[in-house]
C-alpha cells in the first residue's frame, strides 16, 4: 500500500487526452477514463506533491473529510501505478 507521504508522478509515457472535466489516460493498450475528481488527482501527480497533500486539496475542494479523501486518493493512485500510468 502506498504511504501518504509518497510523491508519485505520472509516467512520462502515459498518453493523456482532456475531455471536458475528465481525462482519458492510456499506457500501451490500457485506456482508463478519469472523472473530474480523478482528473484533479492526475494533474497533481508531479513527483513533488504527496498523497496527503493531494488528498487535502480534494477534501477542501469537494467538502469531504481528509481521511476519506486520502483513502480514495491512495486507492486510485495504486491502480494507476499498477497499470503503469504512474510511478512512485
Amino acid at each position: 500500500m502506498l504511504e501518504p507521504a509518497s510523491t508519485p508522478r505520472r509516467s512520462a509515457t502515459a498518453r493523456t487526452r482532456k475531455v471536458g472535466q475528465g481525462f482519458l489516460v492510456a499506457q500501451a493498450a490500457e485506456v482508463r477514463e478519469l472523472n473530474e475528481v480523478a482528473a484533479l488527482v492526475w494533474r497533481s501527480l508531479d513527483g513533488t506533491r504527496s498523497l496527503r497533500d493531494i488528498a487535502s486539496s480534494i477534501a477542501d475542494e469537494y467538502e469531504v473529510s481528509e481521511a476519506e479523501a486520502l483513502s480514495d486518493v491512495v486507492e486510485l493512485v495504486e491502480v494507476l501505478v499498477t497499470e503503469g500510468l504512474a510511478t512512485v
Partner: protein
Amino acid sequence: MTIDLPRSHGELPAAIKVPEDAVAVLLSGSAVVGWANPTSDIDVYVVTRSPAVLTGYTGRLATAGAEVGVVVTHDPTGRRYDAEYWTVDQIEALLERIQVADAAADSTYAALSYAEADVLYRITVARALVGEGWLHKVSGRIQSSALPFILAGRELFEADGLIEDAVGMLEAQDTASAVLAARTAFGRVVDGYLYAQGSLAPNAKWRYRKLQDLCDRSNSPALDLETYWRVETMRELDARDPTPWVRSTLALCQDLVMTIDFAPKGN
C-alpha cells in the same frame, strides 16, 4: 511588412487563368495574414465548378483521392505567385471530413493530408477577389468544424510516439537521439496546442508567430512565449548531460497536453 496585393483578378499574372465557371478567386498566405517578408510569395486559390483545364500548367498537387492543378509564375517585379485550382466538390468533400473529431480515435487523424489541411486553413484567412459570399460561407463552416481538434489530435498522436521513443532512448543511454525526439515532440505538442486554440496555419515555421499572436490575445495562455522559446532554442541544454533537459521537456509536453480539451463544443 506589407506587400501590395492584386485588387482584382485582372491584376493577377497572365499565367493564372480564371475559368468562366470560377466561383471564387482568393488571395491567401503570409502576404494576407501580415507575416510576409521581402521574398514571400503570393498564394492564389481558384475554385471552379468543374475541373480547370490548365494550359502551360507546371504541376499537379496529389491529395487524398483528388488532384489539384498548380501554376507557379512571377509578376513583372519578380514576385512569385503560387496558384492552386480546386473544385467546389473537392472543397465540399473536405468539409464533410472535418465535422467530427474523436479524442479516442487517434488513428483517424492522419487521414487529412498536409495539402488538404493547408487549403482549409488558407480559406479561413483568405481575401476574395471573386466570390466574397462563397468565401464567407465556407470559411464559417471551417471555423465551426472539428478541424482544430482533428489537427491537434494528429499532432498529439505523433508526439506520443516521440515521447515514448525519448524515454526508451534515455534508458538505452542514446541521449543524442533522446534530445532530438524530445525536441520534435515538444514542437508537435505546441502545434497541437495552437491548433486547438484555432491557430490553423500548418507550417511549423510559423510556430513562434502563432504563439505570439495567441499570447497577444489571451490573458493566460497555457504556454508563454518566453518558456516556449527557451525550449525551442534548447537554451538550457547541457551537451555533456542532456538527460535533465530531455526529462523537463517531456514533462512540459505532458503539462501542455493536459490543457487541450477535446470535448465537443457546447459541452
